[in-house]
């Protein structure tokens, strides 16, 4: 594979782009979350040896079905929500602790609610450390809320920026061969740009079914899809 945009100085472009980490990923601050947990400690335990007290223990909370701990007496309200399929993930937990009574009117959790979103993110980051670790159990709940992976349009030098497309393509070539081989996984080289863009958006919108592709396309923005299309269109090996 040869460098395609040799007409532009790589150095010049490189320098416009090195300021490009314009993506805000919310992971939350565990230490701040630990301090916030002081408000909860009166009723909830978390960590090694944690047991149910006034409130249920919070180990392995993420991914847990609501009201599912054996030996804890939940309010009818939460038990019903659990039976209806409520699971605890970052989003549902955040809604719950923002205003417990509005989330589940009959809940026994007598907590007025945590209004500040940053506080909730930090508290949940702390609690998240007591659930499965995705590095050991890859299917465990995420630890961050990814934002669309945006690159400031000012830094994208070109429409269908081929060099950015080449970088992004390295994620594709783990599975798709640049030689155009297509056993088990289809070839993606030399597609007309329009078809490529349409297919990627179909995955992004979950119209096409493959979960790997839905996941990969799901976090590519329009510029990135355009960049990939421009790159793969004329790929030379």
């Amino acid at each position, binding site marked *: 594979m040869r460098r395609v945009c040799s007409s*532009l100085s790589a150095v010049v472009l490189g320098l416009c782009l090195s300021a490009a980490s314009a993506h805000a990923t919310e*992971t939350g601050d565990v230490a701040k979350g630990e301090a916030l947990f002081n408000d909860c400690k009166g009723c909830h335990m978390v960590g090694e040896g944690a047991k149910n007290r006034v409130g249920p223990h919070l180990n392995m909370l993420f991914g847990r079905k609501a009201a599912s701990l054996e030996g804890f007496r939940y309010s009818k309200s939460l038990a019903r929500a659990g039976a209806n399929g409520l699971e605890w993930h970052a989003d549902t937990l955040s809604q719950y602790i923002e205003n417990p009574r509005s989330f589940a009117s009959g809940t026994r959790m007598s907590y007025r609610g945590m209004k500040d979103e940053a506080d909730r993110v930090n508290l949940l980051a702390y609690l998240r450390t007591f659930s499965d670790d995705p590095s050991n159990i890859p299917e465990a709940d995420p630890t961050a809320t990814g934002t669309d992976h945006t690159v400031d349009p000012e830094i994208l030098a070109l429409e269908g920026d081929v060099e950015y497309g080449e970088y992004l393509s390295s994620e594709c070539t783990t599975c798709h061969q640049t030689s155009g081989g297509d056993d088990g996984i289809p070839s993606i080289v030399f597609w007309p740009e329009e078809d490529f863009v349409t297919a990627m958006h179909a995955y992004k919108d979950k119209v096409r079914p493959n979960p790997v592709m839905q*996941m990969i396309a799901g976090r590519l923005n329009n510029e990135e899809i355009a960049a990939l299309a421009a790159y793969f269109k004329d790929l030379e090996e």
Partner: protein
Amino acid sequence: MKLNRRSFVGAVAATTLAAPMVRAAGHGKPRVVVVGGGAGGATAARYIAKDSDGAIDVTLIEPTRTYYTCFFSNLYIGGFKSVSDIGHTYGTLASEYGINVVHDWAVGVDRDAKTVTLAGGATIGYDKLILSPGIDFIDGSVAGWDISAQNAMPHAYKAGSQSELLKAQLMAMPEGGTYMMVAPPNPYRCPPGPYERVSMVAHYLKNNNPTAKIIVADPKAKFSKQGLFEEGWNNHYAGMIDWIGEEFGGGNVEVDPGAMTVSIDGEVTKADVCNVIPAMKAGRIAEIAGVTDGNWAPVNAVDMSTKADPDVYVLGDASQQGDMPKSGFSANSQAKVCANAVRGALTGSRVFPAKFANTCWSLIETNDGVKVGATYEATDEKIAKVDGFISATGESAEVRKATYEESEGWYTGITSDMFG
């Protein structure tokens, strides 16, 4: 190639020319040394060489002439692949990409002088050093086992002769014999690996020795894709596999390689084959280089540089990066982010935001493939998981077959991405 240049490019470029750039000091081309020619190292070397078009001098240090992938080594044990299917050589990396491939062990790193010493005595200077040495085992983590017992009780957790040995032992099992596995504690390479192996061993036994038994002693309370594996074991290998988790003393294990016995929570069993997968740590050269903290090497998520030294990078299994599982897919993904950053630092080429992905496929039985995958981003603290998926239980046979075929495609894809 037609490029639609936007009008502001020139202006932006002019004002940003002063960005920092590390140039090789006092010698010609900048030099990158990569230690370890596996999933992380081979990929990094290839991408740096390929994308810098000769502007960077790349040396790859790897003792073996043929790299056997751990990925698909379980399929070899199950009889779905031959040894030669999983062996790869470095010829193309040298001839087509101009990488200086040196078949030797790295035995020392002097981070002040910026040199690597090889077992053969040579010393190689670097501007940027990338370590991707994979894992080593922690002696004594399974009572009674150390590396000298690997012939009696193989790990087969580095592929090649160990995989062949384990397979030979499996084939030599007496009728109705017992295959035991001691599974590793977290964290270890390839979270579903031991359980895919159990599936492949069961597949072999079902067809060749159907009254044989498999006992797994596991120090963990649960494992990746557990629901999928258990469903598959029930469907295909009912009654053959006994998994003893933490709750039932699976972590309280002692082996005797001489007597070929395994004690699980005090109960001693005679094994015909005993596959011990010990606890793991970063490949030793990472520790020698002084970039580890405990068992692993902490790295910065944006570029895989170590917390200890901005000019030393650690990829793959040896790194402690956050949420990514230790897998070949992960190592390959990290290598490309690292390659882009290293190239940018050495030649001023464009550096794009870090993006990571992983998918682990596992084969449970013929045409019954499952997968788990996720995407990740660099945050200040770590590589953090942002999204993911897992195969569902109860999927149709067609979906499972397509998943298996996809894994075959992935294997061809990643090995050409590593070795050219």
